[in-house]
């Protein structure tokens, strides 16, 4: 019947995690860009918005990523933009995950009327095209920062997470250890967060990864269509500017390519990590 189980669950995850190529590659790329975002801005003396040098210069030893039409340092913009990309991912993805988790857990655990209402809310928010709401909200806020942008992205991104977590909670709440906790007189709230949530840790992590990537892409789209932060620098804004100033047509590929490529790389790395982690957490998918 059942095979022998390895002794330690955790170390097993670690073992597979370290040996999973997808996870390693994804994490590698992510860490690279994360470090870049942290350290990068310190390596340049130029502010992303000052006119640092001659305009439209190709990459050189002075301006590593070249300069914009106005002679701004593209490297500096890139490094700062990368930073806000991670901020948007963290905050937007974090909020998206958090709201999704709370609503999903609540709906899944309480069931009944609470579930009906929350489920309906989830469905409604799920169906309404996120971007359209974001556009209206973005337009409504006359002055926008990266933080507000992240918050709104997070607040519209949670439904699918809530739905998935609700389903997970449904299956977990009928498990006997939950009954056992109830028979120990534990409060519902405590049961949800100390019994059910920890069991979904791996799943929550996957949700967060996807939310993280989604937030970055959403922000990039918003930025690109000119509804991004009115202050600060982001990769989406860089692309927006590059297009507005016809960078590619004027041969300034260094202005448009890096921000888009970085977003693709980061989000791609997150997706790859997601599949890698899935394989780690789910023994069925492991390659022996």
């Amino acid at each position, binding site marked *: 019947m059942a095979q022998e189980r390895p002794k330690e669950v955790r170390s097993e995850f670690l073992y597979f995690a370290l040996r999973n190529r997808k996870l390693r590659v994804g994490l590698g790329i992510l860490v690279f860009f994360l470090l870049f975002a942290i350290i990068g801005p310190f390596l340049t003396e130029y502010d992303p918005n000052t006119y640092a040098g001659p305009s439209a210069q190709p990459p050189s030893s002075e301006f590593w990523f070249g300069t914009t*039409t*106005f002679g701004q340092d593209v490297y500096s913009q890139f490094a700062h933009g990368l930073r806000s990309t991670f901020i948007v991912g963290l905050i937007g993805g974090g909020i998206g995950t958090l709201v999704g988790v709370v609503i999903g857990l609540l709906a899944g655990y309480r069931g009944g009327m609470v579930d009906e209402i929350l489920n309906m809310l989830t469905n409604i928010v799920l169906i309404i095209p996120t971007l359209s709401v974001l556009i209206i909200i973005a337009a409504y806020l006359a*002055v926008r920062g990266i933080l507000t942008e992240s918050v709104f992205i997070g607040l519209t991104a949670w439904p699918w997470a809530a739905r998935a977590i609700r389903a997970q909670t449904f299956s977990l709440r009928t498990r006997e250890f939950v009954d056992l906790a109830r028979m120990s007189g534990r409060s519902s709230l405590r049961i949800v967060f100390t019994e059910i949530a920890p069991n979904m840790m791996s799943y929550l992590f996957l949700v967060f990864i996807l939310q993280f990537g989604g937030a970055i892409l959403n922000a990039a789209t918003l930025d690109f269509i000119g509804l991004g932060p009115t*202050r600060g620098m982001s990769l989406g804004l860089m692309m927006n500017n590059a297009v507005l100033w*016809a960078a*590619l047509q004027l041969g300034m590929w260094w202005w448009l390519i890096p921000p888009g490529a970085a977003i693709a790389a980061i989000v791609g790395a997150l997706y790859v990590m997601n599949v890698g982690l899935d394989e780690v957490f789910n023994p069925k998918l492991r390659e022996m």
Partner: protein
Amino acid sequence: MRGSKFLTVVGLLTIAALVLAACQPATVEVTRIVTEEKEVEVTRIVAGTPVVEVVTATPAPAEEAEVTYPRNETLYTSGKQWGPPTSWNPLQPGSYAMGVIGLCNETLFLYDPLKNEYIPWLAESGDWVGDNVYEVKLRQGVQWSDGEPFTSADVVYTFELGKLDGVYYKPLWDWLDKVEAVDEYTVQFTFKEVRYQEWGNTLYSVAMVPKHLWEGRSEEDIVNGDNLPPVGTGAYLYETHSEDRMVWKRNEGWWAKDALGLSVGPKYIVDIVNPSNNVALGLFLKGEMDLSNNFLPGIATLVEGGYGVQTWYDDPPYMLSANTAFLFMNTTKKPMDDPAFRKAMAYAVDVDEIVTKVYGNIVQKCNPTGLLPVWEQYVDQDVVDELGFTYDPDKARSILAEAGYQDVDGDGFVEAPDGSKIELKIIVPFGWTDWMESIKVVANGAQAVGINLQPDFPDFGGYWDQLTGGTFDMAINNFGSNMSDTPWTFYFWLFRNPITDVMSNGNFGRYDNPEVFDLVVELDKTPIDPEAMKPVIAEIQRIQLTDMPAVPLWYNGLWAQWNSTYWTNWPSAQEGAPKYLPCTWNGYWNMTAILMLTELEPVQ
């Protein structure tokens, strides 16, 4: 595979839907075009299926309705249309499609800003026949495109429309008393109050509409209808339009052929709805666009780089100047209520940096009066020499210091004379990147002289709200400083009065000075004669430069770039080239752009 069959069906359906959709524009009512000479051509397309009928009235070779526009007969333009063409109603100045006034509906006169001349157009002449009576003699033999003659009844009707709510020239009737047709080709205007400048402006900007077609329409339809298909007297006829283009076709029976010996070159004009800069430049470089009136950053490089791109001038500023960008300061707020402070701001802005870095030299630094180069003769050099300003941070600092602005708390920024902190914002709409970059320069300049000024980029709505509602600190704007026949329009905008809660357009800084307001009125009532106008204008300039209610910064260009792959003999500063405005924007066709078309020649 079930999937692929399904796909085929989906594919066919979508294509069918699209073809139907694309053909929609053609589903207009039967368009009957009778030219005076020969045939009647009826193109009728019903429910997307083109049925081409050629009904011949007089024996003449039938001409097939063309489905493609031969490249050497078509002029591709872009720059005016910011959205799909939706209106062909010349009474809707903000909405009408590119060329409705000018190509289709014409004005009594044209105005040539380069020569400062009025060119009789539908009118043969116009004269003051009394103190307050202006008489227009109409050109005979002018026909509407449906074959009806154009007469004084049309002129009277058109001006009478201005009495309706919702017609933009309604204010005309504040001082116009009556319009009468003396005979079929003579119209007399009687005024309650003569405003020469404004009248001159009106004469070449109000387009005539055909009474016989319009008089049956409801008031609602007149004001809010889309007037499709438009019937005019002009050189072009409505051909078709779709979401991304407006197409005009040459009116072979245009009156100017006989009357003036003029004929327009392009058989078709396809105006492309403005795509992004990126796409516009791409189309332009691919030769798919002949004339671009878009603001195309980096165009200087292309002009210099031998891409076959031409502009008015071969060298900076490349473009003619079209309007003046002003730095408005809210004079109802401290410290902008202090002329010294405003003056210091004027000295603090490095306009050259904006011109070179932000615009790549395609704009020009302003004359301190802000008057456009076409109005150069009105600049009073003595006043400018005495009161003019230029970029001079030291001077700015000393003005501030003299006026009592000092950095008391040592944060690097000055405080007001009463010791209060100064924290100001300068705004432009988010997404208007050239302006966004420009106010960064303005803010840097201000900061360099100790004024704590930060750039801010609200959305257009927020920007406009602040500007018209008077809640902003500083802002850039140019909406009423456009080239026209008279500097009066410029001053009317700059010193718009009375000061109300909402300043719809002009005097956003709410500069309140009855003296200058009276001067603007006086200018309006001055006959169109530079020598008579100059003293009044000089007086205005003196006040303007003394009080500095708004700082003129740079002249935005009359963005125009073209390539000569298919069309040649473009107007430009070059010797021997025609001297007409190469511009498709509203209000420019009747400022000689139509004449540009008569000069264009296809490349053989």
